[in-house]
C-alpha cells in the first residue's frame, strides 16, 4: 500500500517552444528537490541529440522542419530513447523521485506518446506537464540571444547567422505547436513570467511543492546577505547559571549571552556594509536567539527609515542537538562516544537523540527558502552555522555531504544574487580598518566553489 501513494514518483514533462525558460524551470526544480534529499534528475533531449549525432554535421533548422519526415522521425526516436532512460531511472527504486523530461513536447501526439509510454512503466509514474508560454516579443528576443551565446549548437556560427537559424527553427516548432488544453491531464501552465498560472489536477504533497516553488521563483535582481551573529561573551559567571548547572540540567548558555566587544564591532561593520550596498528597504530576518537580534539592532537604529521589516523566525534557530545541547564537541565525544561516532559517520541523517538531524533542518527551512525566493526586496539573514550551511546548500547546489562538512566562518557576509540558472555567491570578510568592509574572499564556500557539481553527469 505504502508504495502506491499518489505523490511518489513524479515525471515533470516540460512543454514549450525553445527559449521559453524550460531549462530554467528544470534547474530550479532539480536543485530544490536535490536539496530536499529527493532523487531528481533532468533528461534533456537536446543534449542527447547532440551526443548521439555528434559525428554527423550540425543540425541546421531544416532538421527541425515539420515537413521533414526524416528529421521528425529521428527526433521522435531520440525523444523516446531519452524517455526510456527516464523510466528506467525512475523505476530504479521505490523512493519518491522527480524526473524532469526536458524537450519541447509541443504536439498533442507527442504528449500522448509520453503519457502512454509512462503508463506502461513497471511502477506507477505520475506525469505532470509544465508548459511555459511567453508572448512578449522583447523578452523573447533577449532569451534568444542568450540561448545563442550559450548553446553548443551555435558555438561556431556567427551571432547573426545563429539568430536567423534559431528563429527558423522556432518557426518550425510554432507551425505545429499545440498548447496544452486537455483537462484530463495534470498540468501546470506558466504564462509570461508566471503572471498567470494555471494548475489542473495537481495533487499530492510533492506536486504541490512544485507549484509552490514555481510560483515563488522570480527573476527580479536583488541581493540576499547571509551572516552569522557577532561573537558573544564567553564566560557566563552569574551564580544563577552555576545553580542551574548544579541541578544537572543542560543549558544553551550562549543563547542569552550579550555580544562582546568584537561582536558589537562586527554589528557596526555589518550595518555599514549593508548601508553602502543598498539604500533601499531591507528585509531583515534573524533567529530568536538574543545575539542575532542584537547584531542587527545597530542597523535598525541607524537606518530606521530604510528598514521595512525585522522578523524573528524560530525556523532560523540553530540545529536542535537534543540531549547534547550546550555541550562542546569535545564534551560530547567524551560523554557520548557512540553518538559522536554515529554523527561523524553520517552527519546529515544522524539525529541526536531528541534533537534534529540536518535533514530535519531542511524540512524546517523549506518554507523559509520559498519565502526567500519569493521576496523581491534585498534581504539580510542573521542565523547560525547549521542553518546557514543548509541554506547555502540550497543556493549553491551542494550535496548533503558537503553541507554538513562545510564551514561558514564568523565575520563573513555571503552575498547571493540570482544568476542564470540559480544563484551566484560572493564572499566578503569584514576586516579591520576597511571602512567599506569589502574584501571578497578567494575560494568561496566549503573550500572552493566549483559551481553546480551535480549537474555534471
Amino acid at each position: 500500500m505504502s508504495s502506491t501513494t499518489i505523490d511518489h514518483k513524479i515525471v515533470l514533462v516540460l512543454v514549450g517552444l525553445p527559449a521559453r525558460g524550460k531549462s530554467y524551470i528544470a534547474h530550479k526544480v532539480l536543485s530544490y528537490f536535490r536539496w530536499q534529499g529527493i532523487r531528481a534528475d533532468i533528461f534533456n533531449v537536446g543534449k542527447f541529440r547532440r551526443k548521439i549525432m555528434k559525428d554527423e554535421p550540425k543540425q541546421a533548422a531544416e532538421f527541425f522542419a515539420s515537413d521533414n519526415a526524416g528529421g521528425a522521425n529521428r527526433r521522435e526516436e531520440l525523444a523516446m530513447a531519452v524517455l526510456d532512460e527516464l523510466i528506467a531511472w525512475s523505476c530504479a527504486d521505490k523512493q519518491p523521485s522527480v524526473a524532469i523530461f526536458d524537450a519541447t513536447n509541443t504536439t498533442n501526439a507527442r504528449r500522448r506518446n509520453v503519457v502512454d509510454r509512462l503508463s506502461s512503466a513497471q511502477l506507477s509514474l505520475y506525469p505532470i506537464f509544465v508548459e511555459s508560454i511567453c508572448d512578449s516579443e522583447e523578452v523573447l528576443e533577449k532569451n534568444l540571444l542568450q540561448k545563442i551565446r550559450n548553446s553548443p549548437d551555435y558555438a561556431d556560427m556567427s551571432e547573426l547567422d545563429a539568430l536567423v537559424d534559431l528563429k527558423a527553427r522556432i518557426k518550425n516548432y510554432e507551425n505545429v505547436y499545440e498548447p496544452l488544453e486537455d483537462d484530463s491531464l495534470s498540468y501546470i501552465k506558466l504564462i509570461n513570467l508566471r503572471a498567470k498560472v494555471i494548475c489542473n489536477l495537481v495533487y499530492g504533497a510533492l506536486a504541490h511543492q512544485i507549484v509552490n516553488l514555481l510560483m515563488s521563483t522570480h527573476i527580479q535582481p536583488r541581493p540576499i546577505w547571509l551572516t552569522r551573529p557577532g561573537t558573544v561573551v564567553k564566560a557566563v559567571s552569574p551564580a544563577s547559571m552555576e545553580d542551574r548547572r548544579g541541578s544537572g540540567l543542560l543549558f544553551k548558555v550562549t543563547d542569552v549571552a550579550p555580544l562582546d566587544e568584537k561582536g558589537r564591532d562586527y554589528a557596526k561593520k555589518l550595518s555599514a556594509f549593508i548601508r553602502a550596498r543598498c539604500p533601499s528597504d531591507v528585509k531583515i530576518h534573524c533567529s530568536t536567539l538574543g545575539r542575532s537580534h542584537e547584531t542587527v539592532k545597530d542597523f535598525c537604529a541607524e537606518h530606521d527609515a530604510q528598514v521595512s521589516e525585522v522578523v524573528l523566525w524560530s525556523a532560523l534557530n540553530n540545529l536542535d542537538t537534543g540531549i547534547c545541547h550546550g555541550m562542546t564537541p569535545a564534551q560530547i565525544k567524551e560523554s557520548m562516544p557512540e553518538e559522536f561516532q554515529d554523527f561523524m559517520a553520517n552527519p546529515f541523517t544522524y539525529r541526536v537523540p531528541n534533537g534534529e538531524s540536518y535533514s530535519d533542518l531542511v524540512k524546517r527551512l523549506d518554507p523559509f527558502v520559498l519565502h526567500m525566493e519569493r521576496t523581491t526586496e534585498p534581504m539580510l539573514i542573521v542565523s547560525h552555522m547549521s542553518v546557514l550551511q543548509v541554506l547555502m546548500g540550497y543556493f549553491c547546489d551542494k550535496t548533503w555531504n558537503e553541507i554538513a562538512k562545510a564551514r561558514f566562518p564568523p565575520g563573513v557576509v555571503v552575498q547571493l544574487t540570482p544568476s542564470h540558472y540559480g544563484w551566484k555567491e560572493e564572499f566578503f570578510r569584514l576586516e579591520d580598518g576597511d571602512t567599506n568592509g569589502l574584501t571578497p574572499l578567494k575560494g568561496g564556500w566549503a573550500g572552493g566553489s566549483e559551481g553546480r557539481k551535480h549537474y555534471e553527469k
Partner: protein
Amino acid sequence: MNVPHSIAPPSPPRNIPFLTMSRSLEEEGDFPPEKPLTTTPPSLYYLGSQAPSSLPSVPAVLQNLKKREALTVSASRLCIVLVGLPGRGKSFIGRKLANYLNWKGHRCKVFNVGKYRREVAGSATADFFKGSSASGSSVREQVAQAALKDMFEWLEEPVVNMEKEDDYKDVMDSVAIFDATNSTVKRREMILNQCASRRFGVGVVFVESICDQPDLLEENFRQKIKISPDFADMPFEEALIDLKARVKNYESVYETIDDDTCSYIKVYNLSAKIMANQIFGRMSKTIIPCLMAWNIGSRPIWLCRAGETDGGVGGKTGKGTFGSRRTQDANLSDRGKELRDKLATFVHDKARTFHENQSYTPGMGSEKLHDEGEFHGVRLGSGLPVDTRGEKGACKIMCSTMPRAYQTAALDEDWRVEQFSSLNPLDKGDFTGLEMEEIKEVDPEWYAQLRKDPFQTRFPGGESYYDLIQRLESCLIDMEQQVAPVLIVSHVSVLQCLVAYFRGSPVQECTSIAFPMDTLVEMVPVQGGSWKENRYSMLPRSRVNSKEPLPKSPKSPTGSISEEGGEVEEGNTTHPIWGDS
C-alpha cells in the same frame, strides 16, 4: 519562466543589480565597480551560468515588476472578493480562508452580503433575484453597499498596537473577505474603484469558484438547502426548485472574470483546477497552497500526544525532572506501550471503515475503482490509483522527532511514519528543563510577561506560541490536502495550536486548551468547511491500573493537565499549559 536571463552585456554592466525599480540612478555612485561579464563558455550551458541577472530593461518586464511591486505593497490591507454562482462553494472557501488566516495571526473577517440581505428583506424567493425585478435589484444593491461600507470601516479600524511591534508586524495585516455572488463585471469594477479610492490602499484579489460538474453541483445544492436560513421553513423539494430558479436568474447575467489586469484566482470544481493571475503579494501567496490543499473529503484527522515514558535514562540527571531534556529521549513506559496498542486497534478499525465507505470524493476528478465488481480504491484525477485492497486502508502518520512520539506512532509496518521536527514541542530556549516555578525564581520579570501574554511571549532564545504557528503551517497544509485518514502524534503545545485551528477558536487563547494524555482527539470535516471534534479516552484515566508507579513528577502544570484535563475544556485554567518540554 520566460526569463530575460542575464546575457553578456555589450556595455559595462550597471552597477546596481538589485535596486528596486523606483530608485534613481544617481545613487549608483556608492557601489563598488563590478567586472564586466564575459560571455559564458558553451560548456556552461547545462551547468547554469554564474552571471547575475542584470536589471531587466525590457519594458514589458519593467511594467510587470512595477505592477508586482504595487500589489506587494498593498498587502497589509487586503480584500478578498469571492465570485461565483450560488452553490459553488464560495462560503466554504470564505470560511476556510478566514479560519486559516486568523489562525496564522492575521486579522480576518467575512462580510456575507446574504446575511445583510436577510436582515433587510427576510428570506426571499427566486423572484427576488430576477435580473428584471426592480425592487429586488435595488435592495440587492443597497445591501451590497451596506456590507462594503462596514467592510471598509473594519479594514480601517486602527489595529491595537502590539507591544512588541518589531516582531508582530505580521499580526497587523488585515484581510476582509467579501462574500457575495459579485457575478457581473460592473459590480466588480465598483468594488475595485471603491477599494482604490480609500485613504489606505486596499489590495483586491478576486477568488472565483467555478463548478461545472453536475453531480458535485447537485450535492452542493442539497447541502446549501440544509444549512441556509433562506430555506429553513420550506419543504426540501420546493426549496431545491426555488434555489435552482435563483441560480438560473444569476446565470443569465453571470460574467466570468477575464480581465487579466487584476489579481484573481479561479478555482474549478473545488480545486481540481486552479488559475492564478497576477498573484504576487505575500498574502495572496498564502492563499494558493490552501486552495490547492482543501478538499471536501470526509477523512478524519486524529491528534494524540506521545505516550508516557519510563522517566528517562536511569535518572542520570539526578533530580527526576519531568520535562528536562534528559527525560525526553526516554522510551515508552508500559502504559505508553499500552496506548500504542490501543491506538493501533483504533486506527486500523477506523481507517478500514473509512475506506470501505467514504473514500470517494465527488468532483475532485476522482473515480471509484472496481475490480470484478468489488470496490478496491480510488483514482484521483489523472494521478495514480490509491489501492485500498487488503485489510488496511491508507493512513498518513506524522509525528515529531522525539523517540517517544515515534514509538507511539509506529503502529504498523505497512504505514510509513513521517517524522517532522516542526511537530516538536515548543522550544523553551534557555529555560529548557526548568519548571515554571524555577523560571519564576530565575526571571520573575519574564515570568510576569508570560502570564500576561502567553501567546506572544517568547522564551529567551526559544519560541513563543506565535512562532510555533508559523512553523506548523506547512504541516497543517499537508494534513488538509490528505484524502486518507491522518494521525498526528505530537506534544501538548503543538496539539493546542492544531486544535485551535480545527475548532476555529481564537488562536491567542490556544494556550488554555486542555489536551490530556492518552486521549485521542478526532477531527471530522463537517459541511461548510469546519470540523467536528470527538474525544476518545484510550486508556482508563486512573493510574492505579498501570503496573508500575510513575516516577514522581514535581508539581507543575504538566502534572496537572495530564491528570485533571477533562473531556471538554470547560472551566479552562487561565494560565498557559507548558506541559510538554
